[in-house]
């Protein structure tokens, strides 16, 4: 298999375009005042409008517009002053009106770009965004809960979405993955959506074609649906790529069709498609006059855009010069993580230490306790305080780690914990000398040899003092005290 895969890549280029649907985080639906809260009993959040009752009419949610414009600007798109809602007509049980209100000829935004990485020569890999438009989500159909029936829940019907369509400029599954990660990160920074594929606030459909390397025209594409994770996207693209290459290599033609990804079986297979069934008969929705966005509004949203990932990465590299590029990458991977880092860095006065602790202890703790940085038990001010305690010598590094563990469990400030558990570093020479005396007395063999000049035993002896003091002794000072006794 590997050798065949290597053979394909030498001959055929994989060309991918991605359509991403993102739920906007509004409190109410796009065309009615029903709540968008997740997890309610079925059909709890419904009203005449999102039920598609006879006579009901849509009224557009201003916040959905605000977030859609923000998303478009964050992706470098041109926002249109006038855009038009259109009806996409088809029949499905969770599509209550028998049409979806979307945008067709005149979308909200066009012509954006996203930088998804860099080539070895340092040039950026830029992917175009064809368009971003607003539309309403459909409800949920559940096929396996009742025998021979499909259960329909319209709580989700009417939740605002933006659909983001990329140019077919992704070359290969790795670029597709990078695009999705970059898109997700930008939209998270822009604070327009939860962008979670697991929760359904981010969904992906892929369009894929192949062509001989060197060809410039595009091959026939197929569409892959039912993708439910980023890794699934990569695997599905690889599988479909192999299928298309096999056909072409054998002299066949690719048929334009919809494929479905089966994550369990690890394969793509054709959806049952009916001839001529995808005529959506788009026309402008007569219930909604055009969406008119004054230039002043678009400008204001642009001015108020939060700092985006690229800008933050550049700023960290400038402001925190002793961070490595890897540090910067990890700290900017989530906006909340960077926010946390900056608070700790500012309050502790030591960005490098802050970065080390976050990349180390904090991420490990978040992982093992299943917390998110946004709701972490350890407040930035408290971690900063801990770092200052270490810097001032009030606690040793190893004590600090113990204190941190306590902080994660209890949320208590470090000073209180250190007091309570006797972890404050002891630097008092009298106390230290007493421990040194005890250790030397309890380990006569090593003591004699060390005092005679076997300096390599100092580690063992310092270790004993640390153990006897339960980590509270200042190891540097203990080291000095022991050293002073050599030859005495």
């Amino acid at each position, binding site marked *: 298999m590997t050798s065949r895969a290597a053979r394909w890549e030498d001959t055929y280029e994989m060309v991918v375009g991605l359509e991403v649907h993102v739920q906007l985080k*509004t*409190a*109410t639906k796009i065309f*009615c*005042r*029903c*709540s968008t809260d997740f997890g309610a*009993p*079925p*059909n*709890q*959040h*419904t*009203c*005449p*409008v999102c*039920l598609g009752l006879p006579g009901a009419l849509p*009224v*557009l*949610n*201003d*916040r*959905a*517009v605000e977030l859609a414009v923000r998303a478009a600007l964050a992706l470098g798109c041109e926002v249109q002053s006038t855009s*038009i*809602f259109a009806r996409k007509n*088809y*029949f*499905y*049980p969770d599509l209550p009106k028998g049409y979806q209100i979307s945008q067709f000829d005149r979308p909200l935004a066009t012509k954006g770009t996203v930088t998804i990485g860099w080539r070895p020569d340092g040039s950026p890999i830029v992917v175009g965004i064809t368009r971003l438009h607003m539309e309403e989500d459909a409800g949920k*159909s*559940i*096929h396996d*809960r*009742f025998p*021979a*029936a*499909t*259960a*329909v*829940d*319209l709580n989700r019907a009417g939740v605002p979405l933006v659909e983001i369509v990329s140019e077919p400029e992704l070359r290969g599954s790795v670029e597709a993955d990078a695009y999705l990660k970059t898109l997700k990160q930008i939209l998270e920074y822009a604070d327009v959506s939860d962008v979670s594929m697991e929760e359904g606030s981010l969904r992906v459909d892929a369009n894929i074609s192949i062509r001989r390397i060197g060809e410039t025209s595009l091959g026939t594409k197929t569409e892959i*649906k*039912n993708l439910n994770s980023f890794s699934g996207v990569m695997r599905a693209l690889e599988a479909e790529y192999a299928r298309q290459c096999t056909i072409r290599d054998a002299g066949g033609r690719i048929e334009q069709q*919809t494929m*479905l990804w089966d994550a369990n079986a690890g394969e793509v297979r054709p*959806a*049952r498609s*009916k001839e*001529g*069934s*995808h005529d959506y*008969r788009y026309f*402008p929705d*007569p219930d*909604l*006059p*055009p*969406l*008119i966005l004054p230039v002043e509004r678009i400008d204001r949203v642009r001015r108020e855009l939060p700092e985006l990932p690229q800008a933050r990465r550049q700023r960290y590299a400038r402001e925190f010069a002793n961070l490595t590029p890897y540090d910067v990458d990890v700290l900017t991977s989530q906006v909340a993580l960077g926010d946390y880092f900056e608070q700790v860095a500012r309050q502790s006065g030591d960005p490098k230490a802050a970065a080390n602790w976050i990349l180390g202890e904090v991420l490990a703790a978040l992982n093992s306790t299943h917390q998110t940085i946004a709701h972490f038990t350890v407040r930035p001010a408290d971690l900063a305080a801990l770092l200052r305690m270490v810097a001032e010598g009030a606690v040793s590094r190893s004590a600090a780690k113990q204190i941190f563990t306590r902080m994660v469990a209890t949320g208590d400030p470090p000073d209180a914990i250190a007091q309570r558990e006797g972890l404050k570093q002891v630097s008092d020479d009298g106390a230290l000398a007493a421990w040194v005396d005890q250790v030397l007395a309890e380990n006569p063999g090593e003591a004699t040899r060390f005092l005679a000049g076997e300096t390599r035993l100092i580690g063992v002896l310092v270790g004993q003092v640390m153990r006897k003091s339960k980590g509270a002794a200042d190891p540097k000072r203990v080291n000095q005290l022991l050293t002073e006794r050599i030859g005495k």
Partner: protein
Amino acid sequence: MSVSLDDVRHVATLARLGLTDDRANALVAELNTILGHMDVLSKVDTSGIEPVAGIGAAGTPLRPDTGPAAALARGIGEFAPRTTDGFFLVPRLSTHEDPEEA
């Protein structure tokens, strides 16, 4: 442009209307007659004319992102043909794989 029996059947499928053969055949003639009257429009010079959109519109009004949702005087159980556990129930799609058309 004239409508054929295939056109009528195709359009009936798009609109989810079941048609008997008799009805379908009759509709071919009916639709052709009606559409024949529309041919006059193709001769009208409409170059540069914007199609009417949102008549009387100064742009669609925008509402705040707040509730409460419009209340229903009776619950869905009282007007839905079939519900169970709060869900609307329909016959299961023979293959529920094609998420865009049923």
